């Protein structure tokens, strides 16, 4: 295993990109990442995407994307782990460079979600749950996270306002992110008066449906300054884990064991303590998710992260900034792209080029990306050089 660095990152405007096809989104992000490091070709390509087949009818996207990037003939692989597909694509690229198999690898994530209507998108997303024993009964992803939220509220006294504070905080961060789908601040009334989606979660507790892509370029750390143009960012640790597929099979609905295990492995590889982490990008697909993730990652005791956003602890100027990019809530959640976009944000922050949303003195960042209700998780720890 050799040290690996990220030398190029590419992010594009996320939102309802009706004029752009699945392949357009990918190529736009991939070219941005290549331009960022000044390279024109790579040795291999990994792309994370949850369900291009159900969203657009297109499978076999590894080959399609290599073709349309003008790099046909290279090894191009699609990886899938529901909403953790992007994080997993990054991990596969990291492993390929770290193993010595390839020198320069592109990791990308993409999802084209607006070619179907809302009910169909809700159905497609629900295929990431247990088809025969959860989705069959009419549960949705907001519904599954609502089951978690209800349990958390019951056990720890979490208030509706504390849940809303997560969305308000992430929108405040996202208001400084030009790539975000909804780069604007929201207030408490907006959250509490938004339409009910799955009680107790309202529309403003939910990440949106988004078209988007993101891409990064990895190479061996020792060649990072020779191959790249900007300050390299080192991959300190990578961890992945799974859990039971169905939420009802978990002993504790509010604790993501896959996230805890993935974090344990990433920290073991990084050989650092949690105190060294300056900021986090976590999988806030719903407001309750950010709370449970922060506890599962070990940054808060059980039942204690519920008030973190309300008390300002996780704000940009707080003790532990969480989701400076705006998170999935404000930036958008093109499911397969999300994990890669988290890495892009880590790199922007660790290079010190995040502008108004810059975390002051950021040296180490952590990204947590999760599939389903936490049946899969990927955690990465990155350090600025």
């Amino acid at each position: 295993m050799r040290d690996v660095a990220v030398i190029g990152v590419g992010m594009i405007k996320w939102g309802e990109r009706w004029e752009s096809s699945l392949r357009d989104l990918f190529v736009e992000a991939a070219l941005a990442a290549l331009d960022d490091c000044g390279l024109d070709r790579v040795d291999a390509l990994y792309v994370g995407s949850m369900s291009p087949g159900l969203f657009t009818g297109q499978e076999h996207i590894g080959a399609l994307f290599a073709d349309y990037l003008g790099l046909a003939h290279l090894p191009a692989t699609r990886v899938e782990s529901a909403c953790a597909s992007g994080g997993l694509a990054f991990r596969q690229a990291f492993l390929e460079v770290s193993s010595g198999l390839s020198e320069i690898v592109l990791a990308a994530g993409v999802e084209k979600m607006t070619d179907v209507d809302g009910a169909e998108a809700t159905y497609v997303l629900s295929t990431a749950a247990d088809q025969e024993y959860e989705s069959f009964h009419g549960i949705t992803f907001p519904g599954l996270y609502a089951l978690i939220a209800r349990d958390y509220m019951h056990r720890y006294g979490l208030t509706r306002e504390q849940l809303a504070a997560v969305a308000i905080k992430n929108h405040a961060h996202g208001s400084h992110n030009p790539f975000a789908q909804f780069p604007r601040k929201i207030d408490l009334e907006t959250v509490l008066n938004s339409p009910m989606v799955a009680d107790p979660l309202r529309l403003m507790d939910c990440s949106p449906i988004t078209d988007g892509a993101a891409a990064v370029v990895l190479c061996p750390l020792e060649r990072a300054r020779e191959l790249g143009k900007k300050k390299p960012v080192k991959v300190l640790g990578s961890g992945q884990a799974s859990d039971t597929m169905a939420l009802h099979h978990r002993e504790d609905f509010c604790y993501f064991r896959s996230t805890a295990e993935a974090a344990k492995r990433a920290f073991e590889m990084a050989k650092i303590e949690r105190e060294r982490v300056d900021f986090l990008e976590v999988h806030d697909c719903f407001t309750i998710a950010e709370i449970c993730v922060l506890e599962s990652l070990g940054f808060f005791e059980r039942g204690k992260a519920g008030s973190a956003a309300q008390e300002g602890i996780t704000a940009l100027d707080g003790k532990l900034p969480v989701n400076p990019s705006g998170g999935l809530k404000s930036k958008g959640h093109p499911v397969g792209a999300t994990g890669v976009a988290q890495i892009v944000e880590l790199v922007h922050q660790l290079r010190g080029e995040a502008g108004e949303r810059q975390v002051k003195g950021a040296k180490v960042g952590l990204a947590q990306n999760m599939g389903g209700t936490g049946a899969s998780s990927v955690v990465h720890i990155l350090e600025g050089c």
Partner: protein
Amino acid sequence: MFSAKIWRESPQRYRLEAAKCLGCGKVFFPPRLVCLGCRGREFEKRFLPWRGRVLTFTVIHTAPTPFVDMAPYCIAIVEVEEGVRLTCQLVDVDLEAVEIGMEVELEFRRIQSNQSDGVLCYGYKAVPGGGE
């Protein structure tokens, strides 16, 4: 093909057939080939009780394609016996009156009716009651 996909699950959906590990006694619904507890591979068939209690619940307002006409509807995680849980709809209930810990009975009901090939899908739903 599609009807086989439904028929295959009928022992669980129609009769709540579960599997009890002969090694450690843990009960699995649906049955598995390997025990999560002791990794044993020997099981005996057993039937779950048609009653339980609500561990957590939600009311779905934005429904996926096959359920759009039913919304709003309640979905709960129900514990039917120590450690054995399932997800299902909770129906014939005042949506405002559902609470954690509520006793429910499971009934044989129609789950989905508007699949593309028109096959009616049956299974279990919870209703208020139970607790002898």
